[in-house]
């Protein structure tokens, strides 16, 4: 019996091996994905992002509890950064999710971003596919919010929650970081701390004045939570349910599903092609010789790029 056979029989350790197989990009992982892609698409994916320490894991824990209590199964992916210097990672999100197992069917997987340019782990999307085809009703994805990451997570998830704290700076910084564009729900966590009320009203004001309050007919809510004490979580999960209805409504509109699938296809192709073309263009340490030419003043990055680009034909 192969691991995939055991996976079909809902063997958790097989799910776990399959995730590693995908994450390690082992030979055959694309075939594996193509086999499981269409099995199920009933999972609802919720992304939680925001600055370090804003309480994302604690929120994931509390949201998961609500869903487990309702009898849903929950798969969780928690992404933490890989150190660009050592390639190692300290994955600590599980600490905040210790008691979930006793409450229902839950599976938690920690992932390091691994050299994907500081972004969301490249494999996160595919690991979510594994959880989805395994059959989880709800998939929660936690990512540290820095730049590109949130864009990725927003493209992947049905609902994106952005968690901020009074300490994470004023709302202008939020705007700069591009968080406005990707949030479906804003959470101001650590409401027990000073300054949370101010952040809430600033955010609301800014959303109104920018006319961004409504996206595709959805009014962006700002919710105050005290995740650690479970305060505000009911309001938050109610909002997620509202947003889910909104999204499901969008799916019935013509073209919406196509739009999502198109962006999914392009994202996957983009990565594959980039990796492949780069590999071919820069085979055999040729990059070192280009570097030498540049360092010696014989060439420059732009001429080399132009020369290499001319080599690309399909």
């Amino acid at each position, binding site marked *: 019996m*192969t*691991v*995939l056979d055991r996976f079909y029989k809902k063997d*958790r*350790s097989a799910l*776990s*091996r*399959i*995730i*590693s*197989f995908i994450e*390690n990009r*082992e030979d*055959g992982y694309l*075939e*594996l994905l193509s*086999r499981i892609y269409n099995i199920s698409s009933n999972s609802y994916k919720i992304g939680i992002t925001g600055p370090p320490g804003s309480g994302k894991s604690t929120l994931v824990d509390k949201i998961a509890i609500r869903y487990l209590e309702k009898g849903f199964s929950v798969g969780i992916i928690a992404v933490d950064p*890989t*150190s660009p210097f*050592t*390639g*190692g*990672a*300290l*994955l*600590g999100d*599980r*600490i905040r999710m*210790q008691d979930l*197992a006793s409450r229902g069917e839950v*599976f*938690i*997987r*920690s992932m*390091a971003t*691994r050299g994907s340019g500081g972004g969301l782990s490249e494999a996160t999307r595919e690991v979510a596919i594994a959880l989805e085809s395994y059959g989880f009703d709800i998939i929660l994805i936690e990512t540290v919010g820095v730049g590109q990451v949130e864009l990725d997570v927003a493209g992947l998830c049905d609902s994106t929650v952005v968690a901020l704290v009074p300490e994470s700076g004023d709302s202008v910084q939020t705007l700069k970081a591009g968080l406005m564009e990707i949030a479906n729900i804003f959470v101001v966590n650590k409401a027990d701390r000073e300054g949370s009320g101010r952040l809430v009203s600033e955010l609301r004001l800014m959303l109104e004045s920018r006319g961004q309050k409504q996206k595709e007919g959805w009014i962006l809510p700002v919710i105050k939570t005290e995740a650690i004490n479970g305060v505000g979580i009911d309001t938050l999960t109610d909002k997620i349910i509202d947003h889910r209805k909104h999204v499901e409504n969008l799916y019935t509109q013509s073209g919406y599903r196509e739009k999502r699938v198109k962006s999914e296809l392009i994202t996957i192709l983009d990565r594959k092609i980039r990796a492949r073309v780069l590999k071919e263009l820069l085979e055999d340490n040729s990059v070192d010789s280009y570097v030498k030419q540049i360092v010696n003043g014989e060439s420059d990055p732009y001429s080399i790029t132009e020369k290499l680009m001319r080599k690309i034909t399909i």
Partner: protein
Amino acid sequence: MEQKFRILLAKPGLDGHDRGIKVIAAALRDAGFEVIYTGLRQTPEQIVEAAIQEDVDAVGMSILSGAHMTLFPAVMKLLKEKGAEDILLFGGGIISEQDAKKLQEAGCGRIFGPGAPTQTVIEYLKDTLPGRRKRESIL
């Protein structure tokens, strides 16, 4: 390090001293490992379940409470029951040489004393882990 090794670090039992294990966690990260830290007061069941979900190569337990002669065998037994005996179990803490020897004879990996340099742990894992997990055909 070409292959990424994943290590689960756990602190079972009731004592709340996690300084040592945090030092190891940071050292292993700096040596290129992916370290999953699960926090304090984990039961053997929780540890083994986490090890399976995370598909780790090794589980490291720090035990200062004196309960090592029950906790290590309990985790080993559960790993075996779940067909995950190829996950290395190693540990550290206040454990006599005699006890450490007994545990190792029973199939446990190395048990490090409280003063063991982190470099020793890193080298041990780098030597022991390659090729240890069983390979199964996926498709």
